[in-house]
């Protein structure tokens, strides 16, 4: 009988909850740093400095933000349609693979053609890879959750095979990596003297595109309806399975794009672990960003800064980088709890006020 509160609570409450969640993350992280005998304050300082201290560090933060943002935008579509995909990592890997194939074997093409072509190849690859889980869900009703995870491992091992003993291994056959992509497939720098590449622009355009898709196209309305209540959507003649597959594919498209850009902008060749688990972090980014393109952008920047800053922190203070994972895990958990945190604080606050009023 009792009605739940509208999920769309006022902005202030949302921010209050988020603020509390982040505060708790900082507290727990500080304890962990202190346990290792380091000063939390110094560690956080090193982190901030490492992320934004110089032109170069800011650029590094930006280029780490790009793949996180792209993959998280894909997941935003997916989660809004009611699918829990955990498969961005594998889709990134496949996207990178496709970009590599185009970048190496079609290397003769001029840059203005080759760059978009390699990106599109990455998008198609990621989309197709994601569609496997999408179809299994739509046709057989198998949970997409497990399958997307399994596909991550399969993709990783597949690429690992291709570059260590398979056809894509570098000519010299020494390291498990591919040859360098044709220079025509490399993304150019947009900030001289840094690695900040044109992928940043692609990511910015994608933010707008996903916003338009979700709120300015009938398709977005349809997907959100499916995500919120598939039964009502079906009753009104919306094809639920088709929307689910489509959302899955779109999430793969964005992840694939992330993989292609990461490869063309940074590594310039395919190697094991080039994605450095951007796909897993994207999930936290999407959730922290409230499944809204604007929020996701802020969250991706935050996580990008965290990654860059953590490297500096490790270099200067010898605090292990794996702390970043701890922080991300804590972010997911505390953000999930924010509604509870919020109501708890509000209750605490009002009861104190009440007590104060009585005393007066």
């Amino acid at each position: 009988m009792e009605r739940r509160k509208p999920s769309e609570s006022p902005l202030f409450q949302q921010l209050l909850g988020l603020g509390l969640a982040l505060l708790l993350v900082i507290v727990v992280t500080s304890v962990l740093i202190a346990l290792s005998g380091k000063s939390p304050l110094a560690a956080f300082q090193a982190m901030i400095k490492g992320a934004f201290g110089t032109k170069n560090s800011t650029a590094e933060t930006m280029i780490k933000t790009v793949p996180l943002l792209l993959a998280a935008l894909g997941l935003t579509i997916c989660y809004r349609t009611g699918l829990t995909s955990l498969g961005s990592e594998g889709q990134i890997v496949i996207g990178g693979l496709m970009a590599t194939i185009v970048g190496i074997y079609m290397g003769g093409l001029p840059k203005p053609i080759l760059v978009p072509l390699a990106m599109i190849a990455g998008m198609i690859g990621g989309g197709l890879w994601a569609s496997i889980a999408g179809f299994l869900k739509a046709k057989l009703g198998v949970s997409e959750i497990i399958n997307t995870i399994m596909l991550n491992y399969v993709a990783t091992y597949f690429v690992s095979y291709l570059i260590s003993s398979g056809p894509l291994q570098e000519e010299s056959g020494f390291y498990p990596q591919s040859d360098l992509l044709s220079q025509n497939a490399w993304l150019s720098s947009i900030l001289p003297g840094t690695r900040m590449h044109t992928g940043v622009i692609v990511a910015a355009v994608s933010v707008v595109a996903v916003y338009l898709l979700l709120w300015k196209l009938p398709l977005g309305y349809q997907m959100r309806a499916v995500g919120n209540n598939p039964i009502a959507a079906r009753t009104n003649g919306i094809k639920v399975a088709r929307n689910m597959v489509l959302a899955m594919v779109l999430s793969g498209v964005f992840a694939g794009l992330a993989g292609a850009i990461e490869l063309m902008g940074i590594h310039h060749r395919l190697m094991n672990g080039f994605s450095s688990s951007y796909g897993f972090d994207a999930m936290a980014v999407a959730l922290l960003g409230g499944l809204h393109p604007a929020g996701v952008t802020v969250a991706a920047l935050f996580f990008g800064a965290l990654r860059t800053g953590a490297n500096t922190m490790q270099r200067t203070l010898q605090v292990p980088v794996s702390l970043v994972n701890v922080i991300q895990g804590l972010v997911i958990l505390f953000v999930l709890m924010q509604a509870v945190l919020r109501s708890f604080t509000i209750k605490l606050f009002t009861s104190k006020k009440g007590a104060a009023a009585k005393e007066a």
Partner: protein
Amino acid sequence: MDILSGFLEAMVRMACPIMLASLGALFTARSGIINFAMEGIMIMGAFFGVYGSHMTGNPWIGAVFGMLAGLAASMVLGVMSISVKVDQVVAGTGINVLFLGLTSYLFTVMYPNGQPSSVNTFPTLPIPVLSGIPVVGILFRQSLLTYLAFLLVPVIWYLLNRTTFGLCLRAVGEQPHAADSLGIHVDKMRYVAIILAGLLGGLGGAALSLGQVSVFIENMTSGRGYVAWSAVTVGKWNPFGIMGASLLFGGAEAVQLRLQAMGISLPHQFFQMLPYVLTMVVLAGVVGRTVGPKAMGKPFIKGER
């Protein structure tokens, strides 16, 4: 013959951690909770198993450490899904990220020079007579933990199907409101399931790190927690089915190890893929033909249907 017995030995050994974790996950599944945190629970068990064994020199104390660490991770899932009532899959993923990170962090902080030296593993315990049988005798030259895992299968089956505790647990997972109307404490039963899952999952993790190699490697569970959860579905929510599913996955890993050792020319990555591909194939075959507990994944809110 050596090949076969080597394969059997590896299969049983590889199946053991998955089976323990999967049996633990079965309790949560039966009580209506999606245990997506098994990966995090197992990695905690794996790390603290090594830690305990290294500190005390006794692998069994290590196993207890592992179980308690698994319990801690599992309790986070319990609080999130039972008390805070959030999305169980997302919470599980958060837990996995957190504990994969935490164990790596602790490992680097506590063992700055790499692996702790001289960690004791579980001793093998040959069963007289049986272990002398050719080929299959190897199955009776396992560690005590492996025997324990197999012994747990009928025990848990009995617990679920022949005791009133099992009856209550199944009712909670199927129709929590009906259970509540009969005075069964739904949340309490679910916490019991969470505790059992934590202990068994932690033990499974310890079995992984203290089984044969006795090392902790960052992220060493590499998806076994997810495989263990899939094994619950593949095994049709039944301990014996889970045993079969675990042996299947263990077999896939054993094939990979054996063929690699034999120097078969196929690239090893294809064998490494095998358990994951197998999971997908078997799931696609099984799902739709079995029905899991009805209330799975749904938080229980009193009075709300």
